[in-house]
């Protein structure tokens, strides 16, 4: 499924919430309004509030890194240095992949930055994957300056908006699993980076992001369900161990080097982690 349709359908279901005024698009208004609603209706423990604050901080750090990496990438593109651009591409994206649960809450910016071919109408298609296609398919940086400038602008406005993000405890609970679902749905299949085949970078970054959430929630999990926490720590370790086999000097092997046996192995460790991870909603219990 096109991952952007999910956001759109939420806005259809809750038209009433669109009245909350601010100058973003309908989707993000709806998302934000929804989150505000949620966070208003419940009070949470100090520990949980602390985890949420730390996660907001993590979001800021990662989007700072994202701006930094994108700036270097865009410079390489505009200097016509294809080799450098290709080298920077996968790592520049990683901070974004780590904090997708927050980034996705800005419904308009996420597709502008990260839409894959076919996710949006051709004439609206911008962002990393548009550049990816030209760099790897046509093997050139020519004609990409405009996309590069636009990308940097979008990444910068994402950074600005993250300041305003209303991160709720539910964002963490949902986000940790969503990140692994991302891995399952589009990284293990090689869909995400269909031209550069750098899917394993995204894979690792999604897992990092999910692990971060669990780390932040671990004091609460320790209290509510220590057995679950043990299991999660063990299973995260299993995932990282499995990824070790595919590391290269500077990053990860190409998706095209993976055999069916490899993808199955990776898929199994992700499933083994994601199933118990889906229980972390216990942290929301009073």
């Amino acid at each position, binding site marked *: 499924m096109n991952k952007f349709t999910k956001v759109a359908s939420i806005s259809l279901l809750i038209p009433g919430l669109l009245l909350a005024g601010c100058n973003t698009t309908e989707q993000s208004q709806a998302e934000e309004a929804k989150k505000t609603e949620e966070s208003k209706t419940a009070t949470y423990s100090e520990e949980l509030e602390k985890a949420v604050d730390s996660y907001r901080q993590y979001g800021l750090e990662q989007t700072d890194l994202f701006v930094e990496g994108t700036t270097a990438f865009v410079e390489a593109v505009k200097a016509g240095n294809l080799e450098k651009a290709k080298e920077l591409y996968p790592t520049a994206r990683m901070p974004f992949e780590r904090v997708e649960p927050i980034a996705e809450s800005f419904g308009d910016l996420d597709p502008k930055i990260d839409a894959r071919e076919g996710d949006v109408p051709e004439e609206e298609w911008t962002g990393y994957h548009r550049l990816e296609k030209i760099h790897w398919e046509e093997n050139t940086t020519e004609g990409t300056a405009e996309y590069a400038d636009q990308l940097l602008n979008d990444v910068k406005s994402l950074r600005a908006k993250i300041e305003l993000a209303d991160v709720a405890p539910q964002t963490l609970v949902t986000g940790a699993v969503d990140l692994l679902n991302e891995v399952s749905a589009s990284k293990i299949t090689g869909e995400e980076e269909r031209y550069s085949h750098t899917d394993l970078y995204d894979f690792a970054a999604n897992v990092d992001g999910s692990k971060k959430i669990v780390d932040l929630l671990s004091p609460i999990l320790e209290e509510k369900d220590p057995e679950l926490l043990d299991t999660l720590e063990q299973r995260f370790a299993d995932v990282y161990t499995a990824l070790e086999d595919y590391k290269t000097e500077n990053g990860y092997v190409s998706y095209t080097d993976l055999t069916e046996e490899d993808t199955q192995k990776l898929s199994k460790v992700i499933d*083994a982690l994601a199933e118990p991870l889906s229980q972390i909603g216990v942290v929301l219990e009073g």
Partner: protein
Amino acid sequence: MSDESKSNKITRREMLYRTGAGGLGLLVGASGFGTISALGKTLDKEDKQTAEDAIPFYGTHQSGIITKPQTYIYLISLDLTTNQLSDVRDLFKEWTMASAHMSKAELVGPYTDNSYVPPEDTGEADGLSASKLTITYGFGPTFFDKNGSDRFGLASKKPKQLKSLPSFAGDQIEEQWTGGDLCVQVCAEDKQVAFHAIRNLIRIGRGIVTLRWMQSGFQRTPQADKKKGTPRNLFGFKDGTVNPSTDKEFNDIVWSNGSEAPWIKNGSYMVMRRIRMLLEVWDRTHLNEQEMTFGREKRSGAPLGHQDEFDDINFDKKDESGNPHIPVDSHIKLARGDGSEKILRRSYSYSSEMDPTRAQLDAGLLFISYQKDPFKQFVPIQKRMAGMDRMNEYIRHIGSAVFACPGGASKGGYIGDSLF
């Protein structure tokens, strides 16, 4: 997690049911899940008379073996990824609980009031009848020792009857359709009920087991077969005419007395063969050859030269030119042999849609048999057939596995408890 802490604990699912049944408070604080309250009414319906189409899960024998074959099957083979026996034990406890509930058309676990965790039950069988659901578990040879390692300290309990089948003439076994540490057979009169069960069992095992192979199968529904005849396979022939049906036969043929290993008492050994049928080739074969291949008439099921499907077969009966009515290389002749080897067949047809390399139907027989000793019962039969069965031209043995299915669980116990 340590062996100790886990094995002595009741499972989360069990806990939810108990709180649902016995009221909150009882276990609150003791478990770490104390804040979850069960919304459900009293879900433990053990005292309630089981519904008409429910087959009890608990009993001396596992259900799904001598149970009259239901319409649908899912058979899966699983490999264990853990090296701790306590994990396996916990898994079987959870599976037993879930199986007992699902057999009674109950949810695997009740809904709770925390909507930020996924429900215990995936939900697609909610409100559906039990549909004669049976769930049958087995242990493969590699459960006991794998690559020479006594992985769970149970190698000494491995029965001698439990090992991979030898290769037979003409076998085209594909590695991905062989063996496995564990198997689960789910059968039901409703496909959605069956799928729900297998899906939830796989889900419960996630992180402890991974899927090795999975095959679904079908027969005709009872509604479609008003006359309750012998089911037909995809070659259009009646299959399973001669099958044990009395308690004495089951004791003689199917149930182990436990002499080889006490834990297998009242259990049985399952043989699985995934047999691809070359339907395109078969469909081009004239009727006479089809009937000579089976040794039966296609429409009536009567042995060639006989009147009725259930006639005692006289293999010596000759036609006017002195040839036996039933060819010596026909399927029924070779299957019968001298009549000393008998098995309980519980096979299903399968259709896995299309074989992409040939753009042909990938369909055939999910052959399943139960017996006391695969090597004294199944193997000699298959040896005869592999060598000269006329049918070999139309079939390919693709998959092969053997599992030891322990006796049934009693209430309070769990499947495999006599082994662990």
